[in-house]
């Protein structure tokens, strides 16, 4: 097959999936493969390859028979490490905190700002009261 300079420019696009190529490049590619039988054939070949890969992706491997028991055994060990340290009410408390962490952070922020303002006010009042009388 004859390969021209133009063909070389288009090589990466022949392999690419449609979502990897911008509209301009796609239009130029379509124009090129409309006139170049070699690139048209190669583009079709890569398209078939991508289809085969997609098909292969739908197949599932068979896990080893001991995988699920091993996972469950590890999860049980994990629970034993966690649960004695966190009794059920504390686990529930931890979940509530986790679920509402954004609100808790906002409330904590407001509380810190309010405490800072109150402290600054108190210092101002105290300084005013203890200041020597002027003129």
């Amino acid at each position, binding site marked *: 097959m004859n390969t021209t300079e133009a063909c070389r420019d288009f090589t990466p696009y022949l*392999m690419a999936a449609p979502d990897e190529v911008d509209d301009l490049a796609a239009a130029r590619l379509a124009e090129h493969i409309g006139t170049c039988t070699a690139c048209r054939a190669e583009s079709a070949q890569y398209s078939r390859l991508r289809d085969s890969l997609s098909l292969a992706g739908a197949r599932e491997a068979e896990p080893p028979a001991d995988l699920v028991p091993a996972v469950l055994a590890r999860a049980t060990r994990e629970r034993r490490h966690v649960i004695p340290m966190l009794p059920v009410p504390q686990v529930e408390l931890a979940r509530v905190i986790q679920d509402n962490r954004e609100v808790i952070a906002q409330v904590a922020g407001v509380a810190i700002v309010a405490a800072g303002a109150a402290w600054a006010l108190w210092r101002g009042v105290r300084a005013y009261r203890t200041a020597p009388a002027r003129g």
Partner: protein
Amino acid sequence: MQITPELVEACRRGDAGAFERFVRQTNRSIYTVVLRIVGNPDDAADVTQDVYIRIWRSIRGFRGDANIATWVHRIATNAALTHLKKRGRLAAPMEEEQMAERLATVDDEDQRLSAAEVERAVERLPDAYRPLIVLKDMYGMTCEEIAEQMGMTEGAVKVRLFRARRKLAEDLTQGGVVVPMRKKKVQP
């Protein structure tokens, strides 16, 4: 992967029985994606175990508005990619027969042959290329998603995908699975 919201909620509450059902329902798909990325069944089993422990530890923080299958898939691919980074390129690839034995069959005979050949060729790809082909061409992730997950730029993902596909095509050509393509020494 079919996981009901009720099952997820039960897992979030720490229900051990629910977690067991969750593991039984999802282990094939999780093991498959991990195996495809790491390329070795023993490593894949170990990484799959790690994936479930990560899920168990973090499912309380799972937000109900997200897709659980996407969330689980992301944890699995992250764990597999992390394993590959730790391992470097030293591990021996899985034997072809071993991989073929582990693959379930599909209905159509022609499709099974074609998919099996392609799967074996993917398995022979170097560690640096295989995850790209698996995530993009087998699982349909976008380049943007892959870039985020692999810590690469989108452009780098596209360049590596180009090289991976070219290597895959060369491998399949040598094996007589596809007709020879023209040799071109160009980069995108």
